[in-house]
């Protein structure tokens, strides 16, 4: 009898608590306790999540509004942004007012059931969007802008002019020429870059038009590993990997950096617009000497009329729909994405025209580069292939799996198939029908 009593007491307690937990699983909507507790009379507050590279930008914003708005800059790993936002949705609290996020999550935030992203079209001056031209189109979802592109990470062809002169090579303009030039490097000790990282997805699969996340409408996505646009990539690149002129390690791999990159043995590499400032140049990284490096336009795939680019990165600034002071959040996002002075010395290519002009002036005049790399970057900025879109499942995580497969020695074709097969498996769980 006592046993039953205690047992029912526990159960009763549990049921009472469960009843009170109504808010535990409702997402977004209820309990709009945004991270900023902004009391109406006192100082306004903003919580901004950034990665390490963007922290200085956040701190300069903090300084610029000191006294009016109390800004907190919290460094959060990029891999954790999406789960943390989901966590906030589950718990109904803790959203950052502004977040710097990997771009693939844009559709997830904008989606109604998630509801995190603020519709920026409501709070941001249309002139800002106009000054982006098409560079902010990634953020255009269902007719409204849900984010601001921090930068464009369009891929270009980086090459070492000194090595090219030495070997008498010409800069390839088609992918066939790229492969041929790469094969000419065989035996010379020079290499045509590494593909064991996100670069394979961004610099080869995407520009080729391989349908990995080709959103037709909110309920349909085209993912087709057998498409010729996919198979031609592995057909072209596998011989280069086998010949040893393209490395299956990551460009950030300690071994690759020590053996190849820091020995100035990279003759050419398809890489994003930030590659020069962030990877090739810094002494901790490749440390390639001055006066050698520049960028050319992307080589064209056979049968394509445009020299398409993909994007490696190109993070987005998202403002929270739960922000206590939405205008403040929107203003912060605008500053962080576009402020020309602040952006001038950063490593990434701004999408916002006025900021871009300052940045290009600096980089273009920089004697580090053998020739102005921004010319190619500008050309490629308008050529980011549009059939790879933000999707509601975790694309970014799967790209990591693709990388692991390549690093592990799988053939490019097998790795790509495995990668795309997981995308096909993930899509239905978030409401997509997969088509060829």
């Amino acid at each position, binding site marked *: 009898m006592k*046993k039953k009593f205690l047992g029912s007491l526990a159960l009763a307690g549990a049921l009472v608590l469960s009843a009170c937990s109504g*808010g*535990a*699983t409702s997402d977004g909507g209820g309990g709009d306790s945004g991270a900023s507790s902004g009391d109406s009379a006192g100082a306004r507050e903003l919580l901004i999540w950034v*990665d390490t*590279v963007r922290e200085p930008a956040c701190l300069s914003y903090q300084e610029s509004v000191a006294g009016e708005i109390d800004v907190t800059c919290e460094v*959060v790993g990029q891999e954790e942004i999406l789960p943390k936002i989901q966590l906030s949705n589950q718990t109904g609290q803790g959203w950052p007012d502004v977040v710097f996020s990997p771009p693939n999550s844009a559709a997830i935030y904008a989606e109604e059931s998630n509801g995190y992203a603020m519709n920026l079209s409501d709070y941001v001056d249309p002139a800002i969007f106009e000054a982006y031209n098409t560079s902010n189109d990634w953020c255009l979802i269902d007719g409204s802008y849900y984010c601001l592109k921090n930068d464009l990470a369009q891929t270009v062809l980086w090459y070492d002019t000194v090595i090219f002169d030495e070997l008498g090579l010409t800069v390839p303009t088609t992918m066939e020429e790229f492969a041929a030039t790469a094969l000419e490097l065989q035996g010379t000790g020079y290499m045509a870059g590494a593909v064991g990282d996100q670069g394979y997805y961004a610099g080869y699969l995407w520009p080729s038009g391989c349908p990995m996340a080709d959103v037709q409408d909110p309920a349909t996505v085209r993912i087709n590993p057998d498409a010729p646009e996919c198979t031609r990539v592995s057909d072209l690149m596998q011989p280069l990997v086998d010949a040893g002129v393209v490395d299956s390690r990551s460009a950030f791999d300690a071994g690759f950096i020590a053996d190849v990159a820091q020995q100035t043995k990279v003759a050419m590499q398809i890489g994003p617009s930030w590659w020069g400032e962030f990877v090739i140049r810094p002494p901790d990284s490749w440390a390639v000497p001055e006066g050698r490096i520049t960028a050319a336009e992307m080589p064209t795939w056979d049968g394509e009329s445009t020299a398409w680019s993909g994007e490696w990165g190109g993070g987005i600034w998202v403002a929270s729909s739960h922000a206590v002071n939405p205008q403040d959040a929107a203003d912060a996002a605008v500053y962080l994405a576009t402020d020309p002075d602040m952006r001038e010395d950063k490593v990434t290519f701004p999408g916002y025209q006025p900021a871009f002009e300052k940045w290009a002036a600096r980089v273009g005049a920089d004697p580090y580069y053998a020739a102005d790399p921004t010319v190619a970057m500008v050309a490629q900025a308008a050529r980011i292939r549009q059939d790879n879109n933000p999707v509601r499942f975790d694309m970014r995580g799967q790209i990591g799996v693709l990388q692991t497969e390549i690093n592990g020695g799988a053939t490019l074709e097998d790795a790509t198939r495995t990668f795309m097969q997981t995308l096909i498996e993930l899509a239905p769980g978030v409401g997509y029908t997969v088509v060829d």
Partner: protein
Amino acid sequence: MVANQVTRSRRPRNIQASAIPGKAAAWIVMVLFALFSVIPMTWLLLAPSKTQPQLQADPPMSFGSFQGYVDAWNNLMLFQDGRLVTWLLNSIWYTGFQVVVASAVAILAGYALAATRMPLRKSMLITTLIAMIVPQVAFVLPLFVEITALGIYDTAWAIILPGTFFPFGVFLSYIYFSTTIPHDLYDAARIDGSGDWGVFFRVALPLSRGLIGMLAFFSFQVNWINFFLPYLVVNSGEVLTLPVGLGILFSSTPALNPQVGANVLPIRGPEIALAGLLVAIPILLVFLASSRLLVRGVLAGSVKS
């Protein structure tokens, strides 16, 4: 069992002169395993004394300079303005609180099971045994659901409170009080007129120094290194503990993953090794200090042979 331990003889147990080659082989194996055990920690101790290039170029077991530690520390302080110190202090006070509360609760509960006439002792013991075998990690997602409902999400209490539930401690305490303290002692005290509380405070507690040591040891170890639960139930960096903070450093600094902010933050190998030391050293010290406790036979008496 206790009697045996106290009068353990010092005679060699079973060495024969003819077993010398066997003895040598045994020593080699034991020493090799000892080396294997010690090398990584030694590396960790030496790493912050070097600079990143030295870490790669110099022999792994070399010593750099004492200045290296200072530099590494200063660099670590650059991350979010000394966030590391906040993490360290959090770890210290959360774990301290947990150890005190968990031990106190466990001692009382174990005593109640062992020496009082509380009802349902058998069921409570069985429940404790089950809870003891199932690790806390198994409860993490359900705990997340509950903590959110209770409204303590993202607070220190979300981390601290679940750690005060310590079924293994209750079990240890129960075994201790039922085996180590002879029943005559309890009866004698009762005859003198003490109630249960009196017996507890005047007889049981003064004799439980060994138990308290073991409880503190186990609850410290399990709570200090806890990662999964704090990671889920706290979102704000300032409330987090050191092990989780270390994880944040992995993903936000170039130490292990150069893609992240390589030229913005000078946090590389030596710095992250120093952070790792801060997590590992307290456990190491506690283990070394408690080595006698462990040798004396934690299990003896609890799981009978």
